[in-house]
């Protein structure tokens, strides 16, 4: 069954439990310079017109339907998992050329400094196939991150799918901090 990651920025606080869970699930070796596949942001964005928006975000691979990284990879490391629709990879032949990073609009691919190979979020697709939620979703206490089947997603009426979410900065101006000062 195809799955969709959803993210609701109005529920997030960048607590980074998702990052810790990702690290735990994927045995990320921080000591060796590895980074987990998810990244949270607690970022203050100033508008030129005044006011500051306090963004809290959690991002990882968006598992784009038409994932540009797949076509960009010169050795064909990246593919779609037929069941979940997630963008998965086998980096045996990865040459570390960073073509996938150039293709990805979200900065999702990471490079292990040890072997120079690309790693990325695989959506915990093996967990999904075994009836579990992705580790990051499981760790989100606030309902900001979720992973739904396509059907659940359609029925939810949500517009928060990660791969369609382009949260334009200007839509956030009304929420800028200035309104309380």
């Amino acid at each position, binding site marked *: 069954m195809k799955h969709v990651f959803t993210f609701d920025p109005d529920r997030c606080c960048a607590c980074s439990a998702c990052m*810790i869970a990702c690290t*735990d699930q994927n045995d990320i070796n921080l000591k060796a310079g590895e980074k987990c596949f998810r990244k949270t942001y607690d970022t203050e964005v100033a508008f030129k017109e005044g006011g500051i928006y*306090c963004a809290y975000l959690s991002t990882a691979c968006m598992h784009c339907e038409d994932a540009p990284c797949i076509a960009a990879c010169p050795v064909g490391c990246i593919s779609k998992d037929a069941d979940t629709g997630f963008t998965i990879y086998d980096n045996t032949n990865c040459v570390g050329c960073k073509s996938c990073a150039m293709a990805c609009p979200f900065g999702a691919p990471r490079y292990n400094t040890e072997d120079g190979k690309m790693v990325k979020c695989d959506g915990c697709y093996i967990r999904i196939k075994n009836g579990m939620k992705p580790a990051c979703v499981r760790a989100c206490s606030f309902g900001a991150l979720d992973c739904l089947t396509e059907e659940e997603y359609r029925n939810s009426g949500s517009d928060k799918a990660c791969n369609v979410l382009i949260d334009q900065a200007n839509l956030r101006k009304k929420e800028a901090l200035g309104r309380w000062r």
Partner: protein
Amino acid sequence: MNELEKKIKAKIPGEDTGIEIKRSLCAICSPGCHCGLDCYVKDGQLLKVEGTLEHPYNRGKLCTKGAANRNYIYREDRIRTPLKRVGPRGEGKFEPISWDEAYGIIAEKLAAVKEKYSPHSVAFFSGYCKWYRPILHRFCYTFGSVNFGTDDSTCFKSMDIANSLTTGAPGGPNIPNTNTFLGWNYGGYYSNHLSVGPVRALKERGGKVIIIDVRYSPAAKNFADIFLQIRPGTDGALALGMGKLIIDNGWADMDYIEKHTYGFDEYKELVQNYPLDKVCEITGLNPDDVFEATKLYATNGPACTNFSASALTHRVNGLQTHRAIICLGALTGNFDRPGGNVPSFASYIHKRGGFTTREMEFREEKRPFDQLRIGETRFPTWDEYCDEFQAMDLLRQIEEGRPYPVKAIVGFGMNAKMFPETDKLVKAFDKLDFFVDADMFMTYTAKYADIVLPSCSSLERGEMKAYEGGYLAFTKPAIPPLYESKSDVDMLCELARVMDLDDDLLKAGYEACCDWMIEGNGVTVADLKASDLPVKIQTAKPVVPGAYLEKGCRTPTGKIEFYSKAIAAYDPKYGLNPLPDYVDPLFDENDPETKEKYPFHMIAGIRIPNTIHSRVHEVPWLRSLRPDPLCEINQDDAKNLGINDGDPVEVSSPYGTVRLKAMITAKLQPGVLAMAHGYTEANANVLVGRDHLDPYSGYPGFKSLRCSIRKY
């Protein structure tokens, strides 16, 4: 990779992968929480953790810290064996010894102090994670010392005392039935993650949220209909100002006041001193916002208030500030009604299960009465409401030896960084004849101990735990104790045998003690252990709003006391005020010279998501989220001082200096600095003066003190 290898890599539990889920609990933070934990285990190794979905308390949720349990447990610096210090205190040079040898030394040294001075010269102290407190407490009393102390000396109790003085009962916000949530100092996201869901649900059903905070927090962003960014430590003035607005505008519930409160007239007179313009001058708030917030709180049906266990009370005016906030609930009839703040009492170690245990009797039956506790007579409200010494007087008593010397400390998870002027306290350890500390890691404090005992984590032991909703649990180890580490309570019970204390129950072991404490509830430890999940206790009763008031408050007058009869009864020499009047949070640091030299208002101990006190600063996964200790500073202040984000800065107070990095933010107001506490290399509490204390509770003013900042 074949399918099975992929499953093993993905840590899928099952017979084929050999991965099993074992149930435990996370004891990284305070026992007020302690979430159920699913431990993915293979061959005795922990592979991963998740919150237990079926657990009645956390329903699968874990916070950032809890999610890092594997990294916490397998920290490389776990203490592996009992250790004996061989270098100077604090240097960290130890040699391994056997458990027998360690027990032998402890027994001998404590007996010597008892012999030479008195049993009271041995202070027993519990730090985190507190779960062994009843056993340590009884051990202390059986040993013959009055001096059992805990980190309650700086956490939770001040709020608790204020509750006891005012309503006679703690009262949590009943969010599921409220219309308005007054999130006074409500952080939620970073400090009480399970509270966020109910607030979200309130918003989704159309309820209103007011957030009052010094910082523009995620809760302010995600929930606030009105956000009051208050000047630090001025909350008491705001509460009194709101009280005046409520009375003046006829929003007070006069029937309720008449029936259930005491001292309204005196209170009414007091709040006349807090007109809106004056309140706004003190708090830095906009009068319209204060008016609207007060109106919303008082006129939108049931409203409940977040009671802050530390943020508000970590000020020298803290206890009275909390009293002033409770008074708003009394004015509007929101105390003990559905959707207001509803009283309930702890069953076992702070947890309110709706049933009673003999936790208190367990220690009280052994309590000696032949000496004053440390700090006794200095903080009368503390003495009356707390069955332990006020540790904020420990440093003085070690230094001065008055009224009697303190010569030994038995610490479990003791944390010197909790104390103002930490540097002076660890120096004073030199005056001790003996100091033993049990901990999982070689902490800053443990380095000063003569003997260090290796504790195991909650995942490596069994422990009893009460949960809200009428539950009791007794966990089983998910993995065996690492190295030679042991459960803290086993150490105490074994030590009781070695020292041959006159206490058969303690000698019988932890499970026997637990059975004794829960007797009468229709379950035994054996029953609890038979379940992987908390067990519903048949004697547990749900909280019925209104029942408490019906019976009469546990206060001197049996009513909610605007005017505290208990405080009025104290010797006037203490200068305590029965009414919750406001004093400046920096009143003791406002002389012109200090003001000029230290112009910033420091909040030493803000909450950030990857830390809890000093507990997880050295957990690599969590540390990676914020590698450096940071001092948050408003962007305009930073600009004026020529400080850029990430610059090294020196923060000083009249008591000490810390060096850390600047974090520039718009979330703090100008003039305010904030930093997380507990770092060894940048210990916020060296900035705090030992006498910058709340005279009622003895709590240090951690979150309101004067500082300066400069680039170095």
